């Protein structure tokens, strides 16, 4: 029982990332009818927002510390980050330490802007082109974005730690009545899950309870009719693209402490997120979220040693196998609507 729970918990963080990316993909697909192969790159750029902020906070000036001397007796030169100079030592160190959560504040405007520019500058011109063209142009964009990141940040993963208070793990099992040490769970993974749930909740609430959201949902169901009502739907959809980009970016920001980001993380997640969207049902937002968590957890189960000895390599392919099985038995995915992307 506790072993099962542990695997479920372990799958939640990846599942959260899948769910967030798939949610954005579905929003874009549902509202704009565009298949965005560059969405993984947006996730990656979000992660690099965190990296950048961390680097910015660590920019330092060299000052001479008169109280200390080096081994030759000369005054010691120390590197003092600007944030420490400006905000004092304590506050400065706290800011550096909390750079990942703080990056959320930076990432939201950055990602919305990127999304907005992307939609107005590129995607807009592809609404009436075939889906193959949309795939290809966004695929090209994804390559460009990841190569730019690679050119500036190099090919190696960049460690971006969580704040000290959230480092390490806690005994989750004891909290819910299991034996001690049966379920050890890292703080940050829990935070990531809670954060993702929050973002997902916000997106759904936004779509459910605001006029804007209502128009977007109506537009997802029937774009032409809403257009006839005299509502400038394209404008709203542009903003929707920005929101989807921000969701992917936030997923990226918060993911950095779990896995140090590198330039191709977007592509790695993108392929799986597409599979998630297909499993959930193209155009279904709840489907995307459900499938994201489901596949994340399933992947976690498949990587248990007991399973791997029984079926070697299953952890590598389980998601694809499930996707294939679902597409063949339920072509519309778990919660897909009829008539979406069917020829």
């Amino acid at each position, binding site marked *: 029982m506790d072993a099962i729970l542990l695997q479920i918990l372990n799958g939640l963080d990846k599942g959260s990332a899948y769910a967030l990316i798939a949610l954005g993909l579905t929003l874009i697909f549902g509202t704009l009818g565009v*298949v965005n192969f560059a969405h993984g790159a947006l996730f990656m750029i979000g992660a690099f927002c965190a990296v950048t902020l961390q680097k910015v906070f660590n920019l330092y000036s060299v000052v001479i510390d008169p109280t200390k001397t080096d081994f030759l007796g000369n005054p010691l030169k120390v590197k003092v980050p600007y944030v420490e100079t400006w905000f004092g030592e304590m506050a400065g160190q706290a800011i550096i330490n909390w750079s990942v959560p703080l990056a959320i504040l930076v990432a939201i405007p950055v990602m919305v802007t990127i999304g907005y520019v992307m939609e107005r500058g590129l995607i807009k011109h592809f609404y009436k082109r075939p889906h*193959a063209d949309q795939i*290809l142009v966004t695929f090209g964009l994804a*390559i460009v974005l990841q190569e730019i990141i690679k050119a500036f940040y190099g090919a190696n993963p960049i460690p971006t730690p969580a704040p000290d208070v959230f480092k390490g793990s806690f005994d989750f099992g004891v909290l819910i009545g299991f034996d001690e040490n049966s379920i050890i769970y890292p703080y940050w993974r829990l935070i990531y899950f809670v954060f993702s749930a929050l973002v997902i909740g916000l997106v759904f609430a936004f779509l459910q309870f605001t006029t804007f959201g209502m128009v977007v949902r109506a537009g997802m169901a029937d774009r032409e009719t809403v257009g006839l009502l005299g509502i400038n739907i394209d404008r709203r959809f542009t903003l929707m693209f920005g929101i989807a980009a921000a969701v992917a970016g936030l997923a990226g920001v918060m993911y950095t402490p779990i896995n140090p980001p590198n330039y191709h993380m977007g592509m790695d997640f993108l392929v799986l997120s597409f599979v998630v969207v297909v499993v959930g049902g193209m155009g279904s937002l709840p489907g995307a979220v459900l499938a994201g968590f489901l596949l994340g957890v399933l992947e976690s189960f498949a990587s248990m040693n007991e399973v791997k000895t029984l079926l070697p390599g299953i952890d590598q392919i389980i998601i*694809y196998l499930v996707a294939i099985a679902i*597409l063949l038995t339920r072509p519309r995915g778990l919660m897909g609507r009829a008539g979406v992307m069917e020829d």
Partner: protein
Amino acid sequence: MKHLTKNDRLLFIFFTIMVLAGPIILAPFGAGYPDLLQRFAIFGLFAVGFNILFGMTGYLSFGHAAFLGVGSYSAVWMFKLLTMNVIPALFLSVVISGLFALLIGFVSLRRSGIYFSILTLAFAQMSYNLAYSVLTPITNGETGLQLNLSDPRILDAANTTGSIPSTNLFGLTMNSTAKFELLGLVFQFNVGFYFCALILIAGFYIAMRIARSPFGLMLLAIKTNQTRLNYTGVNTRPYTLAAFVISGMYAGLAGGLMAITDPLAGAERMQWTASGEVVLMTILGGVGTLLGPVLGAGFIKYFENIFSKINDSVLESWFSFLPEGLSDAMVFVLHFFVGKGWHLTLGLLFMLVVIFLPGGLMEGGTRLYNAFRSKDTKSSKDEPKAAE
């Protein structure tokens, strides 16, 4: 123009001559050496095959690199177990990749459009992951499958040379090259290239026949209007499956040729970026045209070769005539696009082609041709179309 065979014959003869004369024509451009020429032919073949699926039926596969990889592995295994003769190796490459394509196509083609693309992508990623993990006994994981002195090679005579034998066609070794010098240029005629070239020409011929056959017309009809075709009494699925398997076999053959020219196989050949590359080649050259994919493959491989060789010192020497600040700026900017930055250029090229020239180089050529011949547009419009 679809039924004219005279233009086709001319096109085919022209193509054959250009390919066979490749080492001579390309030598002045610094592309006349065997390694690059072989890549032209191999990727040309890959793209020609891919076009049979994507160009004719409109089904966009994002997993064709898987067949390339399977073809390579099959060929290397044949070299290890049976003989260094290339014929059995290529035979196995085509058969295994064909079977693999049959399996993947059977499942993937139950869906169309974006679903099909994602399914093929999923299959290819799955194969790639498996090649790196469980299938290590077959693929040798990250190291890649290589030849060993201790390989059995049961059909070959005992190896006494102490080095790994080279691939050959009944004794004619693939890496032997004849060199000639003329007018300061070195012309290299390599057996491996000519072998690949002959297969490319054969592959091109078959693709041309398919395009001019009733079967080919049905594939085009699938791309245009599946509903009508169904109500015309045609079962579209076997047609798409046949096209998928044929293009998978082309990819496998290309993979086999890669192993022949360089006898090793690695999983990275199956990665989806590799699948993306063949899509780009086809699009860049011109989807649905016969010549386009070969042109696209040549174009990309040529510029990959040129661009990746350029480094900062080369750039500096180019811009040394400029004032220092300006030349530094030029080097700084261009530095991102050359050498290791080639992929950035490739990505940009990808976008530019899709945005501005969806018909690829062939369409660009047609436009230029029409611009020159604007007076009798009508007749000139038809002519390049003969290549369709």
